[in-house]
């Protein structure tokens, strides 16, 4: 998985899932209310039928001149009657409110109730309340199960969808990696040859003009060598043989500054060094050199001519500050993206900060980049 792929997958998944879940939620909410309405409607119809049955029985009973009137009782439901002032007359419902009647349809626990007004007032009954066991319909639980299954299916399909969308991008990245890999292999022999031969040229026999040319060749070779080292580091996927040792960081920083001096001189850049002696760090030498080289080469590459680069090394931090063109907030946010270059006028592959990030992550080094456009950039590594 290339850098940023996980982020892309998460973004697309998030977007796809949130919109799908929103859609499902809207659909399910509507369905829930529809089902509830249906439930209330069907319950009401049954209760209305029972109300008519009780009303008929009361009508017949009110005509009776008997000394005792037996209140109608049913197997499927219970009932109660209230007078016009809402006082209970008689009830077969347990725990009924004797002083008031709540009108309309309502449910309490697992029971459905319907209180309806009636006229004329048979036996004085102005309201009939019917109580029955509610139909056992658990709409919410069923919906939750369906929602969980739907979301799971959505997650799986969206994962496949993201993979399909990312496939061409992945292939392009692979193509680019292969291209760089092939190119790097081809560069290896000529670079080694150039560097070896340049170092062996006897400069005492050269005139001034040839010396300047020789200097330029050295700088160019150092740049290519630097780039080669970066590419090798990436191509081996950071799996270079790791040898963590106690490094004299002060010595290494001084050496790397010296290595870049020729390059800096070309742009008339002055190095201001504030390096504390005897600073040690436990790490792999090659990795630390890659780290320092990348920050330094960036500082030289993007700084203006005739400016200064300040390098400070203390016990717990290393800072490299240039007076270059700086970066905007937006550029800073994307700085660790591989192959991304903000300034196309400068050479490189846009891999410098990607390498920096992988090394600082390996050694839990904290990086702080302060940058202002046209003012400069200050990179501080703290450990």
């Amino acid at each position, binding site marked *: 998985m290339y850098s940023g792929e996980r982020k892309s997958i998460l973004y697309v998944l998030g977007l796809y899932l949130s919109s799908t879940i929103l859609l499902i939620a809207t659909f399910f909410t509507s369905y829930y209310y529809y089902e509830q309405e249906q439930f209330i409607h069907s319950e009401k119809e049954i209760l209305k039928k029972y109300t008519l049955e009780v009303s008929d029985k009361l009508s017949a009973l*009110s005509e009776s*001149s008997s000394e*005792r009137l037996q209140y109608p009782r049913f197997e499927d439901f219970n009932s109660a009657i209230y*007078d*016009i002032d809402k006082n209970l*007359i008689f009830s077969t419902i347990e725990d009924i409110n004797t002083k008031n009647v709540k009108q309309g349809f309502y449910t309490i626990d697992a029971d459905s109730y319907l209180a309806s007004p009636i006229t004329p007032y*048979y*036996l*004085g009954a102005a309201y009939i309340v019917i109580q029955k066991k509610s139909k056992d319909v658990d709409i919410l639980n069923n919906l939750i199960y369906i929602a969980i299954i739907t979301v799971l299916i959505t997650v799986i399909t969206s994962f496949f969808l993201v993979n399909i969308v990312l496939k061409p991008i992945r292939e392009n990245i692979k193509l680019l990696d292969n291209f760089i890999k092939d190119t790097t292999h081809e560069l290896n022999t000529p670079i080694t040859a150039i560097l070896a031969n340049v170092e062996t040229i006897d400069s005492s026999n050269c005139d001034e003009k040839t010396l300047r040319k020789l200097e330029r060749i050295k700088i160019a070779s150092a740049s290519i060598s630097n780039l080669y080292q970066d590419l090798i580091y990436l191509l081996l996927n950071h799996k270079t043989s790791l040898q963590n040792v106690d490094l004299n960081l002060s010595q290494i920083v001084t050496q790397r500054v010296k290595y870049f001096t020729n390059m800096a001189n070309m742009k008339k850049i002055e190095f201001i060094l504030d390096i504390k002696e005897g600073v040690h760090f436990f790490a792999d030498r090659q990795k630390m050199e890659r780290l320092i080289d990348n920050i330094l080469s960036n500082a030289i590459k993007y700084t203006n001519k005739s400016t200064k680069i300040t390098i400070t090394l203390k016990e717990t931090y290393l800072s490299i500050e240039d007076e270059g063109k700086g970066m905007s907030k937006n550029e800073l946010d994307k700085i660790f993206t591989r192959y991304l270059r903000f300034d196309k006028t400068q050479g490189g592959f846009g891999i410098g900060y990607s390498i920096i990030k992988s090394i600082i992550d390996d050694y839990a080094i904290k990086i702080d980049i302060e940058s202002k456009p046209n003012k400069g950039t200050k990179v501080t590594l703290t450990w």
Partner: protein
Amino acid sequence: MVKKTALFILFCTLLNAWEFDKNCLVCHGEDFKFHIIMNKYTLKYSSEQRIKEAIFEYLKEPDINKSILPPEYIKKFGLKQKSNLDDEKLKKMIDIYYKRFNQQSKIY
């Protein structure tokens, strides 16, 4: 003491019954369908309080619009005369009437 109290209650009940017979049954007679009248009041007024109020209003000021009997019946037999009883006594008689003939107390 209990015996005396029981005797007193029995005496009051008999006295009330005697008063109802004297004030109501003396005119309406033995065959008057008291339970039918109560049934009609119950169908129209529902609650004890409203039934008693309606009977009281009618007996104090008999009016064809206040009557629960059909207009044809009123036309044939005419409206009853105003009650001569004072309000307190009339209410007492209505209470006895309601207690004896109301339908709700018969429900079981």
